[in-house]
């Protein structure tokens, strides 16, 4: 305990006259009477007997002395002893920490508040949130207001926690501090990143969730079905994981603005995941999936019971036009026109030799010319592309070779006319000056073959979906025909169709299943804060003094103490 104004303690000398006044005050003259029955209405105080009266006076003296002492010490503004150390709290904010006060995050917040009441005036505190990325909330500071605001901003995130990264981040913020105490607050759940190593100043405090049974959504997605019966029909994919050691039953509801759309019962095996696919017609932009246990077992986490899906209308994708070497402006002109005719509004042009910029989900790349063997990280249409240098492992096609023998005479060997890519594409009477053929891998689909090789093939899944078309823009007169923008539109639809799958934000499966870190922790456990005062010490002492003086005044008024 330290005092801001210790000089005021000299006022404790006032206690001497208080005690003296009690001890040496003028005593009333005492008289024994036959009966006090009629005097009772006259008396200002009554006591059952002398011992009771002496006890009351002693208590009154004690209350007066304690009240005076408390007032004087409160005026001196006491505070807990300062150790001049910096206390850093790294708080796990993974989804499994929950949101409510009785869940691990709420208890961690209460622990920090208790600790803040016990720190001295010279102590500094740092608060870092450990999510997928570390987040600096406050400090190192001794300002209670800033720290309280930081605690209010402490909320769980829909993901896992990388505690090691957060600890490193906290240590980097503490590089200028001398005495450090680093406390990691978490729920014992599985974390991302490397496991923690003990260090001299690192402690941990584990707030385990009181309920270990949990059900939660781990996937909520929608996509256009392969064979839609109407334009607004979609296929919803839902996955529910369970942490329970016993099989569970749950109901999955789909809602649009609170109005039920569909409801389905699902059985989830013990500590596993179950999936459900529903085909529904909906032109709404927002659909909510809710999972509710129907077996009466309580649920640990609330954050994973609901997921919201934004169903954006299918718009033409944004196109990244990547120019390799040997691409003429005339060729680009035809490609731009075809893209414009296919409804593309945004075209990002850059050299294929530069690193790929930021791409959003749903974007498509079109590559032209001679390029390095590096595939862009998004669905790509290769138009007459050749590879410069050694072939890379990630490049979807290998060894495009020129078909010089076809000059002057076009020989179409085969075409898969019913494929969505070749729909409307007519190569009859097309004059081809230059073409490149590829040898597609076994999983790729060969769509058009000319004499000498395959010029149209498609393959890959998801963001690695690709189309190779061996006719460069200026290699034929196809660009002058209607079939060219049709083909470009087909290609965009084919490539962007994979990204039309919409995914809702759900928790990782490890968080839903409340997986614990394997093995016991090697870190020492952080102790409870030493002092839990409901008020700051000066206010607490002043309140005690006021209470005692109030009680004494009341007792005096009622005649209990005279």
């Amino acid at each position, binding site marked *: 305990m330290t005092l801001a104004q210790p000089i005021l303690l000299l006022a404790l000398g006032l206690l001497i006259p208080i005690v003296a006044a009690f001890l040496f005050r003028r005593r009333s*003259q005492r008289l024994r009477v036959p*009966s006090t*029955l009629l*005097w009772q209405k*006259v008396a*200002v105080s*009554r006591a059952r007997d*002398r011992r009771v009266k002496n006890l009351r006076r002693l208590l009154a003296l004690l209350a007066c002395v304690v009240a005076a002492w408390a007032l004087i010490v409160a005026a001196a503004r006491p505070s807990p002893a300062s150790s001049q150390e910096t206390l850093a709290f790294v708080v796990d904010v993974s989804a499994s920490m929950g949101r409510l006060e009785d869940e691990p995050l709420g208890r961690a917040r209460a622990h920090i508040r208790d600790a803040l009441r016990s720190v001295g005036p010279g102590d500094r505190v740092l608060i870092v949130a450990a999510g997928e990325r570390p987040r600096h909330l406050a400090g190192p500071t001794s300002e209670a207001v800033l720290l309280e605001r930081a605690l209010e901003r402490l909320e769980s995130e829909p993901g896992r926690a990388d505690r090691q990264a957060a600890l490193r981040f906290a240590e980097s913020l503490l590089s200028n501090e001398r005495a450090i105490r680093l406390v990691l607050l978490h729920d014992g759940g599985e974390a991302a990143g490397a496991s923690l190593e003990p260090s001299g100043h690192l402690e941990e405090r584990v707030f385990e969730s009181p309920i270990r049974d949990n059900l939660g959504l781990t996937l909520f997605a929608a996509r256009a079905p392969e064979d839609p019966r109407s334009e607004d029909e979609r296929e919803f994919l839902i996955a529910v994981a369970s942490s329970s050691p016993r099989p569970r039953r749950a109901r999955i509801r789909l809602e649009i603005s609170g109005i039920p759309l569909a409801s389905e019962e699902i059985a989830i095996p013990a500590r596993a995941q179950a999936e459900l696919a529903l085909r529904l017609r909906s032109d709404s932009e927002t659909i909510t999936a809710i999972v509710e246990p129907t077996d009466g077992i309580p649920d640990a986490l609330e954050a994973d019971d609901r997921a919201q899906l934004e169903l954006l209308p299918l718009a033409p994708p944004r196109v990244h036009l990547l120019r390799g070497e040997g691409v003429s402006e005339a060729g680009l002109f035809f490609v731009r026109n075809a893209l414009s005719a296919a409804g593309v509004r945004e075209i990002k042009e850059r050299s294929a030799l530069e690193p790929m910029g930021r791409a959003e989900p749903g974007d498509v790349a079109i590559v032209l010319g001679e390029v390095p063997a590096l595939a862009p990280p998004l669905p790509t249409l290769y138009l007459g592309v050749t590879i410069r240098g050694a072939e890379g492992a990630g490049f979807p096609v290998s060894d495009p070779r020129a078909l010089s023998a076809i000059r002057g005479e076009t020989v179409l060997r085969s075409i898969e006319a019913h494929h969505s890519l070749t729909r409307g594409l007519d190569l009859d009477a097309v004059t081809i000056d230059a073409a490149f053929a590829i040898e597609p891998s076994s999983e790729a689909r060969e769509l058009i073959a000319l004499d000498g090789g395959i010029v149209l093939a498609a393959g890959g899944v998801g963001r690695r979906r690709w189309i190779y078309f061996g006719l460069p823009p200026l290699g034929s007169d196809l660009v002058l025909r209607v079939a060219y923008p049709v083909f470009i539109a087909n290609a965009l639809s084919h490539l962007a169709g994979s990204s039309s799958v919409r995914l809702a934000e759900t928790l990782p499966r490890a968080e839903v299943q409340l997986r614990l870190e394997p093995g016991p922790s090697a870190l020492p456990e952080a102790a409870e804060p030493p002092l839990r005062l409901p008020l700051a010490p000066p206010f607490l002492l002043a309140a005690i003094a006021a209470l005692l003086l109030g009680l004494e005044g009341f007792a005096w008024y009622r005649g209990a103490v005279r």
Partner: protein
Amino acid sequence: MSSSAASAAPPEAALSGPREPASTSAPLASAGLDSPIDGEAPLLSPELQSRLARLSMIARRLPEARRRGRRRIRRLGRGTDAIDTRGYAPGDDPRLIAWPAYARFERLLVRVMADEAPLRLALLIDTSASMGFGSPSKLRQAARIAAGLAAVAVGAEDRIAAVACSSEARALLRASGGQKGMARLLHGLDGLRPSGDTDLRAASEAITAAAGGRALCVILSDMLDPRGAMGGAKALRSRGHDVALIEILTPFEEDPPALDGYELEDEESGELLELPPSGAAEAYREALAAHRAAMDAQARALDIPILRVSTEEVFDSIVGKALQVGMIRAGARA
């Protein structure tokens, strides 16, 4: 009473100091009843006893007699001569209700019959610690009055029982067999000592058992019973006894000096009171007046006479008051 003298003296002296004798009434002075107060003097001299024998007790509601005496008394329930009527009170024999009178006046009246019967006199003497105050003490004064009443009763060949009672001690005294019995009674009254707390209700139970039938019960006490001054009287009255009260207080209690700021300690309970810095005596007098007024109201309702005496009051004054309130009469009834 000498209230002015009490006010002038210090409070401690007022509690036990000697007092000037009260003035005597002229008619009784000639009877030799105006002996000065002396705490150590015998309770009753033979001469005084013989003079008191000329008086007789008056019982307003006469109890049933078991044997004939030489006294003609007014009683309810037996005899043939109706000499009076009075209002019905709880405890009265319903057979004595005068129904013709009820038909005329629509009030319940009972017939008072004249008969010759002995009187049972039951004396209840409060011996609680508070009775030890005064000079002479309230208990000594109570014993003296009890002896005088016994002398009156013996002279009329009435039957006498006395109970000395407090929360700690209880003694039963009887005066049967004429002068010998009277001597025994006087000896017993002379040896009474104050102790314990006042409990008049418990004392009334004892006197009921001792009386052996309906009796004239005379309660001698300071009436400062925390459980209620009239509790004992009510209990006795509800059993059909005739009751009379003699309240004995010291001059200090009747007219206390200025005790502002004093701390008072109750002799019986040990309770401590602190008095206000001013106006304590005045407030006490008001409380005493209210206490007595409440007693009077209840006594009127129960048809009980109250005789208020001081410890320093001489016997003739007390007899005069007893005559005045109708507790005794001069001369035996023929």
